[in-house]
């Protein structure tokens, strides 16, 4: 079977690409519908040729029983964060924690595995005395940016958890983070994003800038950069693993490197990027078609923080963004029926193929889901369970109502009820009529 036919068949059978195809078929013009298959196949074929030319595709070895018998002596640490989804109008409770699952298979049962709650924060982001964000530096209190604050807290907590393991000189053979090893920091460069409190920074990075923890030093960008620099210097390999990629950094960087070498023209580069954008083709889509079960893409050095965007343009952080380390990014296709997983690290390991084989083996323990099982384990451990969120919501609701009832003011009570009702048009808010009025 020729490469072209094989890729066309794969596209037909590929569910995620097929979903896009259907979406296009509904929304796009008949012309686009007609050539979608051809475009997809052609892009995949071209990218595959480039990957082969650059010798980036590699076969990983996996011998289940033998692999684990050989690697049972290795200590692996898996890190993930969990955030409570609670949100009510009157308050912004935030419960966040990061967990670590540390396992050494050949250790005696008592010391075989540890579940650690590495970082915990419980507080309210509307509370000016909260211990995480410093609102004295918050110029735009009316724009609470709650989701950004929550994201920022989660990202920093995850990074700091790894830093903590490094500072404690833990003897890991591997450390894995659920998610990118380096998050895009651009959203946190906006004006008015609050800084962390001194208390928070001192707890997160006890060694950091002790003499001068001014507002700038306590900003997310600086604290995160500090954490990443520490991670980059780690003696044990640390990988961030992402389940599915919703963008196409690998392909774009590959094309860029070929454009830089002069192998492809500026025009072809731009047109291809435009096509990828237009058809919403991601790394996951293409690599799912290109890679075979057990194959990996060797890492490419990729710059995640790109300056020059509207948001950062002219901001004080423009120059700082360039200081962020670049990321080594690769992919592993674990099985035939799921998208390849993205592997990120801040430094290039000497034993990268062995490391990838270890990741593949941990992912093969979830043969259908195709994701490192240790991260699945720590995900369950760190997740803030529903019963906890529910209890916390109930607590806030009760507190709010009690305060309202205490005020004995009918309007305040009515407002409290409205706040607690999920929908404005719920039965509790129906206009009163007749005698009830």
């Amino acid at each position: 079977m020729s490469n072209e036919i094989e890729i066309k068949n794969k596209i037909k059978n590929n569910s995620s690409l097929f979903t896009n195809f259907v979406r296009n078929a509904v929304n796009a013009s008949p012309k686009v519908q007609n050539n979608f298959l051809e475009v997809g196949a052609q892009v995949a074929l071209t990218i595959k040729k480039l990957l082969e030319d650059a010798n980036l595709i590699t076969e990983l070895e996996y011998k289940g029983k033998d692999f684990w018998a050989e690697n049972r002596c290795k200590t692996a640490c898996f890190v993930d964060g969990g955030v409570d989804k609670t949100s009510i109008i009157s308050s912004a409770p935030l419960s966040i924690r990061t967990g670590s699952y540390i396992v050494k298979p050949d250790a005696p049962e008592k010391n075989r595995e540890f579940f650690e709650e590495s970082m915990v924060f419980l507080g309210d982001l509307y509370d000016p005395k909260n211990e995480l964000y410093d609102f004295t530096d918050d110029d735009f209190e009316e724009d609470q940016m709650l989701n950004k604050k929550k994201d920022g807290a989660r990202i920093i907590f995850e990074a700091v958890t790894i830093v903590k393991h490094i500072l404690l000189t833990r003897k890991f053979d591997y450390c894995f983070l659920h998610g990118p090893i380096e998050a895009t920091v651009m959203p946190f460069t906006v004006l008015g994003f609050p800084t962390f409190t001194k208390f928070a920074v001192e707890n997160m990075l006890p060694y950091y800038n002790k003499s001068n923890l001014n507002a700038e030093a306590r900003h997310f960008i600086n604290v995160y950069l500090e954490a990443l620099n520490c991670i980059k210097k780690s003696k044990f390999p640390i990988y961030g693993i992402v389940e599915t990629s919703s963008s196409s950094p690998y392909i774009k960087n590959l094309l860029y490197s070929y454009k830089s070498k002069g192998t492809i023209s500026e025009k072809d580069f731009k047109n291809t990027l435009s096509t990828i954008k237009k058809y919403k083709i991601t790394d996951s889509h293409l690599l799912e078609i290109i890679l075979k079960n057990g194959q990996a893409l060797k890492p490419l050095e990729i710059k995640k923080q790109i300056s020059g965007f509207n948001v950062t343009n002219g901001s004080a952080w423009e120059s700082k963004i360039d200081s962020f380390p670049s990321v080594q990014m690769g992919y592993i296709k674990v099985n035939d029926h799921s998208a390849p997983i993205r592997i990120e690290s801040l430094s290039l390991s000497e034993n990268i193929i062995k490391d990838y084989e270890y990741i593949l083996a941990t992912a093969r323990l979830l043969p259908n889901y195709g994701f490192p099982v240790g991260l699945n384990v720590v995900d369950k451990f760190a997740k803030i369970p529903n019963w906890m969120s529910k209890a916390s919501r109930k607590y806030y609701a009760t507190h709010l109502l009690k305060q309202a009832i205490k005020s004995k003011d009918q309007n305040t009570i009515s407002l409290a009820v409205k706040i607690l009702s999920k929908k404005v048009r719920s039965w509790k808010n129906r206009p009163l009529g007749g005698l009830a009025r």
Partner: protein
Amino acid sequence: MNIKKWKSIGTVLGETNIDHFYFSLKNYKAKKGDIITTESKIPSSEGNVVPVTVWGKISSIESSNAFFPTEAAQELTNENIDIRDTILPTTRDELICKVIILGYTLKDNLKLMPLNYPVRPAAPVSYPSSEDVEALLISDLGSEHPLFIGSLLARDAVKIRIDADNLVSRHVSIFGMSGSGKTVMVRRIMDELLKKQYPMVVLDIHGDYLGFIQKQKKMYPNNNVKLFYPNLSVNAEDKEIIYTLIDKLGNTLTDPQKDFLSSLLEKVKYDEGSLLKYIEKLIYKAREFASDSSKSFKNIRPASMYVVIRSLGQVSKKLKNMEQTNFRHRQRMSKLKFEELPDAATEPEKIVSKGQLSILYLKGYENLPASAIVSILLENLFRHRQEVEEEIPPFLTIIEEAHNFIPSRSEDKDNIPSVETIRKVITEGRKFGTGIMIISQRPSRLDETIASQCNSQIVFRMVNQKDQRATTRDSETLSVDDSKQLPNLANGQGIISGQVVNFSLPVQIKFDEQLINDDIGNENFISAVENWDDKESVKQRKKFAKDFSNISSIDRRRAN
């Protein structure tokens, strides 16, 4: 009771009520059937809040490992990987126990009271010491005459006693599959009751209780252990039973033939004594009537009378065979002294007296005659207890293979004579001290009225669902959770419920090895065959059979 010394083994989970609660258990700290406690508070009748200890029994335990994905098991199996070599977690089992609440006790009083306020969620769960559990069980039982029967299934150190007074007056049923431990249990109870000089009558079909005779001198020197074989004698007023026997054991009779049989019984006087002789007499008289039909039975043809005569002959032959079979079994145990069953009507004290155990050995008898024998025996003994003079003391009747004597209506065995008798005895037994213990491996085949009159139950391993349903149907205290446990019980493990205990308890029955009947052997038939050697007579027969076979084969004049 030193509560502070009890080890904490878990935490009560979120939702509780007054019947049961769930708790999270520390690994390996308790097992199914264990008695546990939790401290709680309840409102008192005076309006105060009082601290109490709530007692419960673990009725089920579920284990799960939320961190071990199902699909990982698939990979481990396919690749033959040892989980301990991988990074999969192996130590995060979550154990959730369901606890049936038994009641609460106050600080200085070990009497269990029914809980009327839910236990506190999140309260710690403790593992009380064996001494304290035993103290609670004894104190709560409040028995004047406790009988030791074994130990708590989950805890060997906790000895279990049951209440003898309720046992002998309020009837008890013992159910379980063959080999599950019923007989072991009965022997245990008999041993204890003998020590208390309580009289017992045992209807023994298989000879399971002959060990009591063998070990009498050594183990029960103060008791009188008697071994009887049945005597087919009836009273004149028991003609109904005679009719039923003949009707059921003989050929099927038409209505005119039945009329003839009935009239025959009316006309031929029964002098009391051997039933077989009476049947011979009936045959003789019937022949007379048949040859002289016109005078006595004008409406019945001689042909019908001969049918009845043949039927009577059939009955006589069957009864003789049964007597012979029983005799042969007795002969095998020549060391044991068998006596003919005395007449319960005139000499009840020979069967029931203080400290006496009377074993009626029924082996060889078919259901119907055995039932007739039992019916007559119990009817007479009961009558003696009813009388003002009370010629015999209270006693306990132990009925082995009870489905033969009290079959369910659905068994379609009408007119089994013992059903009515046992029904009467069991209904009124409490007043007159004639307790009954019924033992069966097929509770679903038992008469429902009689089974439901047993206020206590001891149930052993039971796999048949019909029998499980019948067991829970007849019991007021055996829970659904208990019945689920029945198929998994091992030999000698049973669940005791009802009035002999205060709440159902899983128990390991003490095995009295010395009470096994030495002559019955251990059912090791494979070894018996391995060591088998034909008897001399068989050897001779086999030898000559070959010669005769040769003659037959060369005899061409013989047909075929």
